[in-house]
């Protein structure tokens, strides 16, 4: 009697924690629906749903006002291009937030790196200048990390300080002028590095095929083991179909800028490390409970340092992309971008208290924010109303996943 009862409550209310005795393993046949529900529940998928709803609303609105289709390939790749800089920083910010820290200085570091690139490229060439810019960025990360971890000052105030100080250095370095590159070779390298478009039709079809294959393999294996379809394999199958469809429709004309490619590569790398390696697990552990991590023999300071350095390096890379894109820099460049960066990460469900966050969702968060401004521009919404709408959408998007899921965010 008791069992039936607790199982009933199990099935009928996934959010309430069942009182099932912990001693018995959850019966396999019962685990499936809840797993599905969790994976496709608001808490896990909230930010994607929010993004989807926004895109739908904008598509309908633009169709209604008789403009060019909002969902054109060009517009979608535009949004990706526009969000690429922020997304790169937001991905690294996710990592730093996962470790339980905070970095307000990213935008300043990016500006500094761009300034170094632009300032040096003419004299020492593009690639050496990129090296110098990245070096400067990494040093900034070292500085941040060392002060936070070894002096032990709160990350918020440290990076607020370096935000100001590094912006000051940019001002000193540029002496309040806009810098630009002159040399045609450098300009050519920059263009090749950043703005060149890459056809992605074929690669997309390949990736789709791989996904389909992997998904089918996983599904078959599970079938053989007598278990049903898992959400992961369904996801892979669906993703594969989508990729192939988009690739086939877009064909060889489908192309994105290199910035988007870099962003996607960086995101995949970080996602891979976080999801599949022990380094990832340790990063989550360091943020989730630093004391537990320390007692398990994890070098907490080192992982947190590494996150700071990664974050600044990513900012440096964003700066290099920024510099190459505009081939000039003014001292106010990227000012205030840190809030957009952090907002992307948090919209993606990253916890400010460490221990939870996901790169893919952060990406969705960034896309959400840039889709919004893109939508404003496409619909030519009055400048005065944009702030109100943007703020409201942010809160609503956050509400979608918060209200949907009680309890804790998963670490990935």
């Amino acid at each position, binding site marked *: 009697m008791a069992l039936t009862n607790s199982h009933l409550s199990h099935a009928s209310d996934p959010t309430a924690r069942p009182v099932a005795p912990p001693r018995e393993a959850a019966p396999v046949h019962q685990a499936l629906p809840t797993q599905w529900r969790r994976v496709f529940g608001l808490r896990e998928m909230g930010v994607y749903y929010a993004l989807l709803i926004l895109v739908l609303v904008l598509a309908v609105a*633009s169709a209604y006002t008789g*403009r*060019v289709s909002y969902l*054109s390939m*060009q*517009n979608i790749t*535009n949004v990706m*291009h*526009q969000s690429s*800089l922020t997304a790169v920083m937001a991905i690294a910010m996710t990592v730093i937030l996962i470790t339980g820290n905070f970095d307000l200085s990213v935008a300043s570091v990016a500006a500094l790196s761009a300034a170094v690139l632009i300032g040096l490229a003419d004299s020492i060439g593009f690639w050496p200048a990129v090296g110098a810019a990245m070096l400067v960025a990494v040093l900034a990360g070292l500085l941040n990390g060392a002060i936070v971890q070894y002096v032990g000052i709160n990350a918020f105030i440290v990076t607020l300080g370096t935000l100001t100080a590094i*912006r000051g250095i940019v*001002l000193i370095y540029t*002496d*309040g*002028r*806009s810098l*630009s590159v002159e040399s045609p070779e450098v300009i050519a390298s920059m263009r090749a590095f950043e*703005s060149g478009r890459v056809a992605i039709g074929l690669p997309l079809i390949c990736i789709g095929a791989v996904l389909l294959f992997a998904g089918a393999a996983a599904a078959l294996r599970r079938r053989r083991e007598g278990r049903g379809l898992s959400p992961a394999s369904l996801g892979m199958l669906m993703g594969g179909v989508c990729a192939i469809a988009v690739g086939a429709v877009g064909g060889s004309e489908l192309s994105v*800028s290199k910035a988007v490619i870099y962003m996607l590569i960086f995101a995949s790398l970080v996602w891979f490390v976080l999801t599949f390696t022990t380094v990832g697990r340790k990063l989550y552990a360091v943020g989730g409970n630093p004391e537990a991590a320390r007692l398990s023999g994890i070098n907490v300071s080192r992982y947190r340092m590494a996150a700071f350095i990664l974050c600044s390096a990513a900012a440096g890379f964003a700066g290099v992309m*920024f510099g190459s*894109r*505009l081939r*000039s820099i*003014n*001292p*106010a*460049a*990227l*000012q*205030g971008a840190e809030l957009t960066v952090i907002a992307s990460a948090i919209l993606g469900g990253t916890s400010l208290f460490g221990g939870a966050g996901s790169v893919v969702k952060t990406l969705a968060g960034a896309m959400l924010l840039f889709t919004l*401004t*893109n939508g*404003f*521009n*496409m*619909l*030519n919404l009055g*400048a*005065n109303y*944009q702030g109100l709408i943007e703020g409201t959408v942010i809160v609503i998007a956050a509400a979608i996943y918060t209200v949907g899921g009680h309890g804790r965010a998963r670490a990935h």
Partner: protein
Amino acid sequence: KDITLGYVANSMQFPYDAALGKGFQEACKELGCKTVVIDARASVERQGNAIEDLIAQKVDGITIIATDSVVALGWVDRATDAKINFVASAAQIGDTDKVPVKQVYSKLTALVITDDVVAGERAGELAVKFLPKGRTVKIGIIEGAPGFAVVRQRTEGFKKALTAAGVKFQIVASQPTDWTPAKGEAVCQNILTANPDLDLFFSHADDMALGCSRAIRAANSNVKLVSTGGGSKLGNDAIKNGEIDGSVCTKPATIGRLAAKALYDAATGKNTKKAQYISYDTPAITKDNLAACPAEW
């Protein structure tokens, strides 16, 4: 007696403000007076505090790029009450909606300014040359940030010129940036996607035009790009390369010099006239007459 003059920039991170400060300092050096340069970092509050601090230091003259024209009225009052000469640079003092530019606030020693309505008109006149005749043309405007008086003034002048030239036009998009090239690029990209048949972009400043030109090139579009608030080094280069079709020459360093001169004259008693209106010529610039506008910022 040593003469000390103060300059409070809106934000030194804008090359425009920095160039104005450079001109101001150079002129002071030539005139033999000391300078105090303060950066208000785009905050009204900070600018007010800076002026208070300058008054406490008993400087002989103050010039500012007002972060907020209306608020600045109070500061002018306070400074002139303390018998300190005040010159407004680059931005009007008083309610820009109600007071014409040339009606200078009576307590000011001088207003040294680019007339932005006129600058907008110059851009409009330039645009007319590039626009096809005989049909309603579609125009996209790349605004600065909301809340700035110049945003309205430049658009106003621009439209005035088009109307005067009898051009039939439709503003299909008018979207804000925050005065940065990065936002300029994104906004142009988006507007172009939404309106592939656009004829011309009007940008409120060279900075956004720079970003915009990248977007136009990336889209392989041949839409024209006209800017105002030009005369910057990067902008002039872009005009030379044909990335921007034309702009309007502004000269912040000249403004700084003129402001320093006006303050010095007032402080030394050479010219104690109040409410002078000082402006300078703002010609439209294209590839052909770039030499007329040596870049000052």
